[in-house]
Structures are given as structure tokens and as C-alpha cells.
């Protein structure tokens, strides 16, 4: 019996090696001193981290990515919080259909959504690339916002809201003074998860590039097609650090169960 558990432990170790090894290797190669990506690196240096700041497009697209993710996040919250509240607080006709509409951006293949947006929003309405990116990213963030805030609301005791109303607060007043403060951590978690989803998005952004306008992941893809130096490895390390910080914050706010629940 001991043998079998040890076998299982070894198997688990190897699978984790498969999952995390590549990320470790990319981190190590980012410190390469030479011109070519090599593992292990021949000499140690930070020169490729410096190179990130020398390639102007990385900085420009980074700013675009941040802008699109933050602005889209804000709109997704404005649209998503009332929807999540209605969906988790009340029972009404058509609830299942409305639920489905709010999760559908996850179900529709990203590349299909990106193409449809290009054809019927960018081209048809002649929106600018920025506006189109903003709309597209709001769409993909909405399901995450609605899902995280709904799960936060499902832990909220609505009798507190009713008590506040019976004590004289208006419906709207009770929402802002009682409900909203109680789901604060859920909202912060929703913002972070939606941000990562948007910031890492390729499928939609890949259809929305123009002269000098693009998001960071798309710029990284273009760069890899032309150069194979450790700059992308260096950016990857920075992105992984951001990811890790966000993950720990979501874990603090929502607990691990947020990730394991399906």
C-alpha cells in the first residue's frame, strides 16, 4: 500500500514539474547575457529587462492594455453589479435565459467573437480601434464580474437589507449603504479576475490592431515572429509576478474555493 502512495506522489510530482518547469525555465533564460535564448544561460545579466524599455512598442501597447482593461472593467462593473444583484436576489420569468446571456461570452469561441466584432462593430459602425478594444474587452469581462459578484451575494444575508429598509432607508440607499459595503471584497476580487482575463486576452485583441495600436499580448506575438531573443522571457517574468500578486489577493478575498467551484 505504501508503495502505491509513493508511486502516486511521484506521479503528482512529475505532473507539477510539467506544469511549472516551463515557467521556471523561461524565468531563468530571461537573465541570459548573450544574444540568443539559451538554457542554461551562459552569463548573467539584466540587459533584456532593460531592452523591454528600449522597444517603444512594448511601452505603448502596455499602456493600451492597462487602459482597455481598466476602462472595460469599470463598464463591466456598472453593467454587471446590477445584473448580478437581480439574478441572485430575485426569482422571475426568463431568469435562465438572462443567466445564459450573461455567461455566453465565455461559451462563444473567442476567435469567433473577435471576428464577429471586427465585421459588425469595427467595420460596420466604424468605431476606432480603441473603442472597439474597449467594447470587446468589456464583453469578455462581464461574465467574470457577474459570476464572482453573484457568488459573493449568495453569502449575503438579504434580511439585513430588509431591516435597513424598514428602518427608513430607501431601496437605493439600502443597496449603497448596506449591500455594497458587504460585498466589497467580492467586487475587488471580480475586478482582479476580470483584469487578468482582459489583460491576457489574445483571441479578441488579435482582430483589433491598427497602425501603432495593439495590446501587449499581441505585440508579444508579433515580436516572437520576428525576433527570438530573451526580451519576451523578461516580459514574461514581469507578467508572472503581476499574476502571482493578483492570485494571492483573490485567494485572500474569496478563498481558494472560488477557483475550484464549477
Amino acid at each position, binding site marked *: 500500500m505504501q508503495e*502505491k502512495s509513493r508511486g*502516486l506522489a511521484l506521479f*503528482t510530482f512529475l*505532473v*507539477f514539474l*510539467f*506544469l*511549472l518547469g*516551463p*515557467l521556471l*525555465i*523561461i524565468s531563468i*533564460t530571461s537573465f541570459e547575457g548573450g544574444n540568443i535564448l539559451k*538554457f542554461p544561460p551562459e552569463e548573467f545579466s539584466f540587459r533584456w529587462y532593460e531592452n523591454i524599455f528600449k522597444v517603444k512598442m512594448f511601452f505603448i501597447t502596455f499602456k493600451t492594455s492597462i487602459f482597455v482593461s481598466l476602462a472595460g472593467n469599470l463598464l463591466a462593473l456598472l453593467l454587471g453589479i*446590477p*445584473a448580478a*444583484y*437581480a*439574478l441572485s436576489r*430575485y426569482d422571475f420569468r426568463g431568469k435562465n435565459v438572462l443567466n445564459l*446571456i*450573461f455567461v*455566453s461570452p465565455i*461559451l*462563444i*469561441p*473567442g*476567435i*469567433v*467573437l473577435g*471576428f464577429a*466584432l*471586427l*465585421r*459588425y462593430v469595427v467595420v460596420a459602425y466604424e468605431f476606432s480601434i480603441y473603442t472597439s478594444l474597449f*467594447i470587446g474587452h468589456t*464583453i469578455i469581462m*462581464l461574465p467574470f464580474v*457577474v459570476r464572482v459578484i453573484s457568488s459573493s451575494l449568495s453569502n449575503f444575508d438579504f434580511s439585513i437589507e430588509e431591516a435597513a429598509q424598514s428602518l427608513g432607508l430607501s431601496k437605493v440607499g439600502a443597496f449603497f449603504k448596506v449591500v455594497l459595503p458587504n460585498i466589497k471584497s467580492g467586487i475587488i476580487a471580480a475586478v482582479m479576475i476580470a483584469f487578468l482575463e482582459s489583460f491576457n486576452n*489574445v*483571441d479578441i485583441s*488579435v*482582430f483589433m490592431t491598427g497602425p501603432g495600436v495593439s495590446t501587449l*499580448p499581441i505585440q508579444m*506575438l508579433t515580436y*516572437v515572429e520576428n525576433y527570438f531573443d530573451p526580451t519576451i*522571457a523578461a516580459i*514574461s517574468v514581469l*507578467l*508572472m509576478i503581476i*499574476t*502571482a500578486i493578483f*492570485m*494571492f489577493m483573490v*485567494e485572500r478575498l474569496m478563498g*481558494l474555493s472560488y*477557483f*475550484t*467551484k*464549477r
Partner: protein
Amino acid sequence: MSKKYIYLLLLPGVLFLTIFMLVPIFMTMGTTFFREDGFTVEGYLQFFKDPYFMGILFTTLRVSVITTIISIFLGFPVAYFVSKMGPRKKAFLLLLTIFPLLTSPVVRSFSWMIIIGKNGVLNNILTGIGLIEEPLSILYTPTAIIIGLVHLFLPLIIITLVGVMENIEPDLLTAAESLGASKLGVFAKVVVPLCVPGLVIGSILVFVGSFTAYTTPALLGGKQRVISTFLYQNAITLNDWQVASIVAVIMIVVTVLVISLMNVLAKKLNPRG
């Protein structure tokens, strides 16, 4: 509370998604069935007669099926191991699983380019220890896409199954053991059947994810096209929106079919009824 008020809360979001998502999607679907002379399925007929496209569709399906099978094979035992751990070790292992899941797909695909490339880590090690003479060409093949996709979706299978396995009452396992079942017997006869719904959900996520993934095949597949990179190529490089729309509809249909089929299957196979 009046019902109108509830719908008013949902209206902005629904309106936004309708205008910018549902209408564009349905318009894309509609254009593939209508030409100057009315309703037609000619576009689709031409498509399914074209061996080049059928090759891409078949490769994509094959890659997705293999990815799903490997992910389950690797993920199931790991999920079992993780779910048996104490709370602190379990939390630690779950964080190690979630981290790659949240990491950018560009970063993850790029890391595999470093490993399986012609002068990559793997070839350096294998030629270094003299196991092979010529470097293996894995990068830019369907195998590379499968490796990248398994890496992408394995965490999803693991955390889904851990969630399901946590819900199995430990008493059930103790009961089975005290009735004479071996540890392996408990695993095969109690744990596995109870995990079927989780396995089905996990398989849907991995299959649909693999079938529609863009970044991984774009970086690791090279000239080897899959359906998503084929759609992009037609939409952007070749500017053939008619073909791109037909591919989009095929992707939606396959996705919806797989999800519905698996849902029916999950209901039938659920031992809890």
C-alpha cells in the same frame, strides 16, 4: 418589489451584450446562408468537399481529443492525490495549479518554444546525454500543439476534479474498505464513478477549449493550421470573410453540439441520479 424594477437592473447589460455580441454573432451566421439569390447552403457544401479544409478540421478534432484524453489521464490521479492532502498542503498544491492557469497563454506557449525548439532545452539534454544524434523536430507539429494545450488545460481538469472529490464523503470510502475492498478497488469502484459528472464537465472544458484555442496553435503550430488559425488567416491575411464566417459557424455548431451531448451524458451517468 415590482417586476419592472428587476428587469430595469438587467436591461443595460443585456442591451450591451445584444448590440455588441449577439447581433454580430447572428449576423455572421446569417450571411453564410444568404446570397444575392436567396437562401443557400452552397458555401457549406463546397467546404465539406474541400480536402484541405477537411484536413484542418480533422487535425483540430484529433488534437482536441488527444489533448482531452491525456489531460484526464494525467489530471485524475493528481486530483486524487491533492484531494487526500491535509488542508495546508492542499491549499499550497492548489495555488501551484491555479498559478499557471492564470498566467498568460502567450507566456506559456512561448516557454514551450524554448523547450521543444530545434536548439531547445529538450534537444540539448537529449543530444547531450547521447540519447539521440539528430535534434528532434517537435516544434511546429501537431504534437507541439498537443503539448501546449495539455499544459494549458491540465490545471482546469485538476481543480475541477479536486472540487468534485472533496464532496465525496470519507465515510463512503471507509465503508467500502471495511467491507473488504482494496485501496485500488475503492478508487476504481467508488471514487471513479462518483467523479463521472466532474470528468464530463472537465472533458467539455478541455475539448471545447482545445478546439477553439488560438494562441497555442498560432505559436507552436507554425504552418500547421487548426480551425481557429484558419479562421484568422481567412479573416485577416486573405480577407475572405465568407470563408471565415463559415468556419465561425462550424466552430459554434461543434461547440454547442459537444456541450449539449456531454450534458445529456452527464445526467445519464450520474450515479447519484
